[in-house]
């Protein structure tokens, strides 16, 4: 517990310290958006289109308006000048649909907002929405990106008949030569299916406008409060310094809360219009339809290789299902796949093309891993296929092609510079833990008995810690402010916006170690734009690597000042800060941290050239991304009778650089692996031909549950990054990125005696059973 004594007994960084945010979460006392109540607050309910494509002939709101308790009903005509949903990504020739807050004359996806009812409570608001009569003229829709690109397909936006939002081309090295000189060329179409992020808390917004001082308070479940502030203030023409955005407790995001959504703009607009606070809470059904989806790739790979297994060239064509309109990063996500297409391999020659396709579906955007799981899945599947073609062991081909330790910093064919690594270490460690050679022998025996046992490997690399500002749409730096209060307690204000990643704990560990105080003497605050300096937010496994580094540097400044005051009090010139006190290195005399803080604020006397008070702010611009890596090894058994996959062993070896808190790192890996296995085996957003999302609830969308998870044997290798002084790389997405190819490679391996070379996700039992029962050659 925090006390008035400042204490310190041990080094905090590197310890398995329990998360300090957990007590309020597990006792149900945290404050989420829906816990916010304000006097006179109204509730909004949104009427949404049941059609994927339709003209709106007319909207009759008279019955809704007449309902007792309804304050207002707004339709597209009312909000058409209130701005559009912002897209932050830019690509040459990008066609950006103007997505109004409410549909005006046509809808182009199921869930398209058509009208909003504002009422005294959420029940009346919903009743009111049901009374609105919309006359639709349904049209044919297109829900599949490949069909959308076919000639004659329904145009999602009439002005762009080909449904092409953009094309993108990148190449490096001499790919033509690599293919011309290849001994083998392996081709495969690989699908990374559409997924629904499904955070535990859906989205929600409370907007509270104060006309008298032109100020807005916007409470929203977001990963990037400052970004929401900048965008919504600009869209509505409001003053940014009077616009406060608060991300209260946020129950998960997984990338789906980086965006600025229509509802955030709409609710602010309504609050201004009605001069009242207004709340909207997304239902789970809306969350399935109206919060972004992830993945949605159809990839066409070609790999050129030499007979000895050297991979000499990669060609990749990506068809990205963008959905019907763009959220903040939609078109940028597949470009991340291109950046990471070589994986951990030295391959000097690459060629990539992306076609972004509009469909009558929910927009895709960043979902845990965002572009890198697709790239990793592709290259890791392809490497296995090349190994099979060359009759090589999948471990051997990987070890042969890895970037070598002496080659770092390693420039890739896609224009990146990999920071540091020992890529073979996690793979070797995973193989050792698994007893790889023994497993292969066991597999030979199992196959003799007709059993389908598979061993799958994945060696993944990812790009994290976004990132140098020129490479990002909205700045890639991060900020931190550290204040030592007069009582000696330390307050950290960070520009990142954690929502489950545990930085209230890890940042307190960093702070405690640097200032020589205890973890309970430190409070980490975030997520309120009126409190913390401008920050970018939490996504892309950047919080600790970028935000933690900003904090580290702020702490260096502050530590120097504390020492100055300590030295002044001790009348010394050589002092050390540790164990809650400042000690004279010569005399051994010490003064408590608390006394120093008091002296700094009381300011009876000041050290030379030193101002009173103890506060430091640092903005840190990273010089490069970081590139975590690792290897996952999965042993599966496939039941011949049913096609069921059971995961016998799951080994995850991750290298995320230095580890600040092993407990939190393990938790991040476990959650990530669960989502990756979810994609591999169960999850998929399925649309029918008419653009209806048929997996529109948890009845049909298979979220992984605890009881479906294997025991995860996790381990680490540690290769610090030179990019930041903490040596940390990031681990939020690693598990997800490593998991899906490891599982799929394992199942393909299990079915390889039947001639199976590739399987697309999810690996549902029926899909496998059909192959098994046909004895097939897929």
């Amino acid at each position, binding site marked *: 517990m925090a006390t008035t004594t400042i204490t310190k007994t041990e080094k905090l960084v590197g310890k398995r310290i329990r998360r300090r945010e957990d007590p309020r979460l597990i006792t149900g006392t945290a404050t989420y958006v829906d816990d916010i109540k304000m006097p006179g607050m109204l509730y909004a309910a949104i009427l949404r289109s049941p*059609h994927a494509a339709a003209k709106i002939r007319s909207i009759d709101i008279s019955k809704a308006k007449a309902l007792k308790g309804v304050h207002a009903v707004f339709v597209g005509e009312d909000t058409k000048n209130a701005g559009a949903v912002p897209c932050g990504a830019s690509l040459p020739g990008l066609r950006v649909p103007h997505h109004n807050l409410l549909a005006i004359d046509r809808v182009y996806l199921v869930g398209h907002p058509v009208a909003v009812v504002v009422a005294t409570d959420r029940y009346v608001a919903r009743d009111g929405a049901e009374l609105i009569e919309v006359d639709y003229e349904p049209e044919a829709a297109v829900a599949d990106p490949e069909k959308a690109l076919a000639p004659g397909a329904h145009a999602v936006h009439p002005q762009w008949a080909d449904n092409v939002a953009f094309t993108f081309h990148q190449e490096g090295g001499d790919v033509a030569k690599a293919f011309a000189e290849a001994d083998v060329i392996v081709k495969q179409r690989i699908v990374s299916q559409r997924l629904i992020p499904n955070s535990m808390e859906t989205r929600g917004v409370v907007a509270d406008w104060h006309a008298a001082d032109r100020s807005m308070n916007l409470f929203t479940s977001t990963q990037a409060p400052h970004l929401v502030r900048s965008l919504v203030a600009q869209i509505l023409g409001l003053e940014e310094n009077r616009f406060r955005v608060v991300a209260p407790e946020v129950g998960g995001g997984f990338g789906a809360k980086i965006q600025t959504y229509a509802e955030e703009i709409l609710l602010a607009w309504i609050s201004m219009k009605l001069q009242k606070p207004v709340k909207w809470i997304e239902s789970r059904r809306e969350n399935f339809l109206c919060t972004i989806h992830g993945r949605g790739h159809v990839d066409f790979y070609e790999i050129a290789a030499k007979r000895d297994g050297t991979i000499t060239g990669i060609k990749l064509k990506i068809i990205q299902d963008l959905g019907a309109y763009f959220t903040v990063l939609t078109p940028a996500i597949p470009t991340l796949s291109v950046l990471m297409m070589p994986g951990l391999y030295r391959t000097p020659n690459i060629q990539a093309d992306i076609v972004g396709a509009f469909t009558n579906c929910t927009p895709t955007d960043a979902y845990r891993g965002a572009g890198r799981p697709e790239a990793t899945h592709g290259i890791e599947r392809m490497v296995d296929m090349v190994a099979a073609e060359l009759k090589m062991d999948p471990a051997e081909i990987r070890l042969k092609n890895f970037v070598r330790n002496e080659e770092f910093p390693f420039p890739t064919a896609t224009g990146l510079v990999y920071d540091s690594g020992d890529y073979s270490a996690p793979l070797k460690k995973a193989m050792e833990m698994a007893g790889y050679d023994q497993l292969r022998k066991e597999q030979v025996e199992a196959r003799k008995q007709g059993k389908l046992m598979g061993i799958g490997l994945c060696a993944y690399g990812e790009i994290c810690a976004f990132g140098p500002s020129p490479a990002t749409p909205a700045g890639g730096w991060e900020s931190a402010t550290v204040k030592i209060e007069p009582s000696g307690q330390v307050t950290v204000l960070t520009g990142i916006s954690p929502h489950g990643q545990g930085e209230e704990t890890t940042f307190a560990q960093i702070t405690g170690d640097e200032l020589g105080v205890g973890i309970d003497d430190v409070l980490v605050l975030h997520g309120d734009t009126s409190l913390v300096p401008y920050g970018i937010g939490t996504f892309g496994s950047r919080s600790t690597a970028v935000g933690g580094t900003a904090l580290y540097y702020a702490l260096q400044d502050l530590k120097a000042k504390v020492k100055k005051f300590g030295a002044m009090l001790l009348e010394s010139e050589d002092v050390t800060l540790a164990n809650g006190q400042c000690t004279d290195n010569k005399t051994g005399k010490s003064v408590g941290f608390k006394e120093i803080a008091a002296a700094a604020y009381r300011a009876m006397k000041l050290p030379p050239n030193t101002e009173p008070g103890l506060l430091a702010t640092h903005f840190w611009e990273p010089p490069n991304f970081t590139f975590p890596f690792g290897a996952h090894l999965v042993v599966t058994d496939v039941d011949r009778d049913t096609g069921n996959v059971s995961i016998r062993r799951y080994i995850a070896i991750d290298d995320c650089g230095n580890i600040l808190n092993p407990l939190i790192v393990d938790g991040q890996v476990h959650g990530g692996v669960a989502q990756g296995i979810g994609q591999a085996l169960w999850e998929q957003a399925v649309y029918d031909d008419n653009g*209806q*999302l*048929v997996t529109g609830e948890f009845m049909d969308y298979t979220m992984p549950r605890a009881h479906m998870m294997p025991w995860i044997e996790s381990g680490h290798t540690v290769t610090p990054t030179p990019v930041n002084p903490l040596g940390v790389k990031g681990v939020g997405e690693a598990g997800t990125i490593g998991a899906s190819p490891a599982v799929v490679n394992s199942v393909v391996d299990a079915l390889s005696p039947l001639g199976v070379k590739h399987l697309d996700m999810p690996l549902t039992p029926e899909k496998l059973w059909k192959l098994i029962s046909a004895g097939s050659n897929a």
Partner: protein
Amino acid sequence: MKISGSYFLPLPPEQAYQRLQDPAVLAGAMPGCESLEKIGEDEYRMKMKMAMASLSGNFDGKVRITQQNPPNSFKLMVEGSGKIGFMKGEGDLNFTPKDAGTDVSYEGDVQVGGTIAAVGQRLIDGTAKMMIKRFFDKVAA
């Protein structure tokens, strides 16, 4: 969703054909049909109240008969929409004499949208089959 099947009616094809176009018969046989009102040549406006398990909802819809080829075949289109979603069924009915009656075979497409499409996936097939069976049972009665 594709649907197909057949049903035996103990009537000669001419009568079976006629019965399946008789608005009074249709109104009595369409599950949940509350009213059927002629609005054009072989086109009717229909009000339905669907009730199955705890699900219930009112639908406004249309019934249309096209491509008539008596007594061999015609196309039947039924659509309805309400607060809980919409549905549209379209099918070809073929009449073949069999024993002393007629084998009515159908083949078509059922489209469902809105909330019912999102939450009722595992039940749509079974429900469609049940509705069709109830429909023919009533036509035969």
